[in-house]
Structures are given as C-alpha cells and as structure tokens.
C-alpha cells in the first residue's frame, strides 16, 4: 500500500504541512479574543461571565502552548474554577431582572472603543517593534517547569540561570511567596469582614419550641390540658 493507491487527494494533501503549535495558537487566540470582545459587547451579566470563562479558558490553553503547563492548570483552577464561580455566585445573589442587564449608553461605547482602538494600536505597534520577538520560537521542548517553579517559590532557583553557573544565582521567591500567602490570609479575613452580615436577631420558631423541651410536659391520659411549658 503506498501513496499512489490513494490517488489525487493524498498527493494534494502531501504538499501541506501543519504547524500544530500555530494551529492551536490561532484557535485559542481566536477564542480568547472573540470571547473577550463578547464580554464587552454583551449586557447580560451571566453571558458576560460565560464569555469571560471561555476567554480565560482559551488563555489557559495559550499558557499550555507556551510551555507553562503549571500556570495553565493554575489558571483553569483558580480563575475559571474559582473566580468565575465566585462571580456567578455574586450574579445569582444580585439577580434581579433590572440588574442583570444594565445597558451602557451608546455614547460611552463609542468613546471607549475609540480609546481602546488607540490603546490597541499602540500595544500592537509595541509588540512588533522588536525584531527578536517576531522570530518564531525554536520549538524546543523545554523541561517541565512545575518543579523548578515550586523550588523557586521556596527559595531555590534551579532554572537555567543557575545552570549557567552564575557566580551569584538569582534569588528565589521565598519572600514574595510568604507575602502573598499572608496577603491571601488578610484578603480572606477582609472579604469575610466586608461581606459579613448585618446581624439581626431573629428567633426561629424551632428554637422557641426547642427551648420548651427542657420543661417536662405534664400531660397524662385524657385529663384536662394544662400547659406548663413555655409558649411564644
């Protein structure tokens, strides 16, 4: 069995080579950009959230493509899983019909899009301004970064800079790591404090009744119903 037996189609396709990295890059980039645009364009909060998730998910895909597997998984877990559920939860709590879509005035939109176009132009210009950035990568499959990342976070650098045998290896990230963890703790407490309840003391009937059980009811047989327990 060889190429000839397939006839024309194979010889047609044979001239094509696919750069898979490029293919998936385009795919994820398109999803990310279009979804981001949809976030801007849609008025419904829940749809915005959906598009944001798509955008963030596609960005995670880009991270995977760029060889940052750990970061991609992190993005999926924290952002898409955590933050978005948090957001949707917020949406649910504030889901009144008039709140779900707060329309943006058209004028604002025009001004904002002009500004955004200008910003985008500057950024894109900057992106293509340096020669070496435009060269496609070597496609060198580097060693997985999860372990070096973990090592770096506890203060030991084992990535290439260390390998190069620098006299003074670059410092780790132990201090930033600690700061971030303390920061997260502070945020946890702060968020809990901010969103805390305005406490109202409302007795539940259940509890009212629950308090009664400490008092023995004095019923027996079909005698008259005298009540010695507490009442509301």
């Amino acid at each position, binding site marked *: 069995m060889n190429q000839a037996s397939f006839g024309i189609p194979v010889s047609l396709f044979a001239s094509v080579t696919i750069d898979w990295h490029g293919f998936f890059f385009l795919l994820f980039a398109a999803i990310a950009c279009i979804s981001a645009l949809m976030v801007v364009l849609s008025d419904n909060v829940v749809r915005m959230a959906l598009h944001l998730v798509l955008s963030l998910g596609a960005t995670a895909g880009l991270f995977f493509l760029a060889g940052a597997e750990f970061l991609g998984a992190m993005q999926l877990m924290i952002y898409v899983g955590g933050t978005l559920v948090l957001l949707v939860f917020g949406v649910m709590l504030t889901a009144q019909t008039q709140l779900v879509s707060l329309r943006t005035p058209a004028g604002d939109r025009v001004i904002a899009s002009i500004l955004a176009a200008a910003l985008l132009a500057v950024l894109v210009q900057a992106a293509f301004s340096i020669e070496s950035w435009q060269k496609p990568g070597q496609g060198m499959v580097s060693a997985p970064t999860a372990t070096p990342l973990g090592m770096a976070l506890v203060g030991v650098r084992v990535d290439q800079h260390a390998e190069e045998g620098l006299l003074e290896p670059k410092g780790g990230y132990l201090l930033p790591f600690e700061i971030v963890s303390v920061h997260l703790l502070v945020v946890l407490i702060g968020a809990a404090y901010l969103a805390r309840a305005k406490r109202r003391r409302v007795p539940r009937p259940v509890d009212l009744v*629950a308090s009664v059980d400490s008092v023995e009811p004095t*019923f027996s*047989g079909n005698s008259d119903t005298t009540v010695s327990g507490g009442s509301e």
Partner: protein
Amino acid sequence: MSQILDEDQRIIEFDVRTDEMLVNMGPQHPSTHGVLRLVLRTDGEIVSEMEPHIGYLHRCAEKIGENLTARQWIPYTDRMDYLAAMNMNLGWSLAVEKLLRYQVSEKARHLRVLIVELNRIASHLVGMGAYGLDLGTFSPFLYAFREREKILDLFEEVCGARLTYSYITVGGMTADLPPGWLQRCEAFLDQFEPIIQEYHALLTTNAIFVKRTAKIGVLSPEMAIDYGCTGPVLRGSGVDIDLRRDGESIYTAMHDGYAFEVAVMKDGHYPRDHKYPAVPRDAILGDCWHRFFVRMLEVVQSMDLVRQAMDRYSQCKGALGEPLKLAEKLPAGDTYLETECPKGQMGFYLVTDGTSIPWRVRARSSSFSNLAVSPELCRGCLIADVPAIVGSLDVVMGEIDR
C-alpha cells in the same frame, strides 16, 4: 422562661439583601404526598413562610353521604384515607352503630381489631417508606411496600379488594375470614417481626436520618393541642392520648381485654415492652424524629394487638353475625364518634331526620388538623426541611380534601 429563650435564640445572618421568592411546591411535586400545594416564601434557602393550599382532591364525599344510606356510603369512606381504608370503614360503622345503639357480636369485635390493626401497620409502612423518600433515600420505601404488599394480599383474600376494602360495615363485616387465613397472617407476622430491625437500621438509627430529623419541626405539646393535632403527631410531642384507651365507650369497649401500652414518651422513655433503638441524643420531644419513631413503635404495638386479636378471634364460638341492611329508617338524632386511625383521630358526624338517608354527614379529618400546624413548624426552616416536616406529619390528601 425568657432567659431560656434568649440563650436558645439562633442568629440568622442576612449576608446579602436578598429578595423574597415565592416558590410553589406542588401540586406536582415529588414530595407532597399527592396533590398538596405548598406555597413557600423563601429568602434564599430559608423558608420564612409556608402556606399549604388544599382542595385539589375534593370529591364532595360528605355531600354524597347526604344522598346515600349509611351502608352505601361505606365505599366513600374507603377513599378518604385510602391507605387505611379499614380504619375509615370502622369509624363510620361505629358511628352509625352508636346512633343505632347496636352492638356487634364478640367474634366481629375481635375480627375488627385484627383487621384494623393490620391496616394500621400497612398505613404506617407507607408513612415510613414515603418519609424515607422525602429525605432522599429510596430503598426503605420499597422495603416498606414489599411488606405492605403482603398485608394487601391478606386483605385481598378477605374482601377481594387491595385498596378500597369496604370490609368493615355497619353491624359487622361483609364476610368471615377464609379458611387458613389466620395461619397465613401468623406467618406474615413472624416473618415481618425481624424486618423492623432493618427499618431501624436504614432509617431510625441512621446518622444522616437523625441529622435530618432531630430538632427539626419541633411541635410543642401545647401547640399540638391548640392546633388539634392527633395521632402519632400528638403522641410524638409527648401527649399521652390514644382513643383506643381514652376514647368513647363504644370504641374503647372494642378493645376490652386487650393489653397495649400507648406509644408515647413518658418520663423520658418510651414503653419498654419491646426492643427498640435508643433515642438519639440530638432528638428532642416533638421533633420529626419522635413523630417518626412513634409510628415505628405503633407498628410493633399493632403487631402485638393483631396477635392478641387472632387468639381471641379463634377462641370465639358462635357466628360472626350478619351486617345490618339499613334499608329501613335510622332513628332521628345526631351522633359523633372519633376513632384512633393511623393518621390520627378520625371523627364522623351524622344527623338523621328519621329517614334511611342521613340529613347531614360530616367527617373530621385528622390529616387536616395535622397539616394545619405545618406553617408553624416550617417557619424559619430550610427548604430541605419542608419535605421532612410535612412528611413527618404523614398526611393523606384524600382524607383532607374528602
């Protein structure tokens, strides 16, 4: 008292300003026991108000009763509490017999106790199984129905029907027991007795079950009496009333010579005439767990009564007696009689004007009063507690709507 209240008050936190939501639970809802409609006003998961809407199963049974002779109305009583039709038959028959000052034969008396208590077991089995279903476990439901089927088989032998028996009737029974029936009933009881432990294992003592029912829907004794709750609901709150012992003489006379202890918590414990699991620490008197447990105890109690009745019935000499025809006139007057049905005290009231057809017929339904207390119990509970509370009241819509 107020100090106790202060300590026991739980703080409900209102994290966010939320809108109240009106939710319709039913009439097409898996856990409303037929066609009950509960309108819940909820704040998130917390139910601030619950209102039962009834009437979806109304069939004008009472009005129909005013156009039929007393015996013709028996099939309509079947359709009230259709899970305990024998008890309904008995209630109406006894009411008419009370009016007529008629006393059934000794043999019929024991047979009535036997049949009615057997039906109480069947009814409580449904109540128990459906309660498991309300709490999200399916298997006990089928275990309960498996045993109920055997009771229904026994009933089918007796009267040909499996749900609407019309077996007990004014003046006696429509037929005597078929030969060999007592042995089969005995065999059923012997086989059923150990199975109750299964139910205790699956539900009564199950940790999750206890968590879901203990301290939920606590009904204080005085509230239970205020709302006219009866039956296991009342006894679950620790009120020691059982019409089989405390009722009118024509009804208590039926149980003369029978030994039974009312299933109610007295001095911190239930009657100790049989093995039963200990009351969990979390449960307090009057909560869903106790209502459920009282039913479980009554199953055992009824089994005991059935055995006693079988003994007495088989020792009875003489005929069962023919039921009354009642084509002739009923004496003018009025009468009211309540009997202890599985769901509670079922009362029948009839006014007669001297013709064979009652002038007024009225049924006092226990489920109706029991359901009436549910808004009180559900205030401030979680949505998941609503089926737990309503299920623990064990209402039958056929009886409420009539």
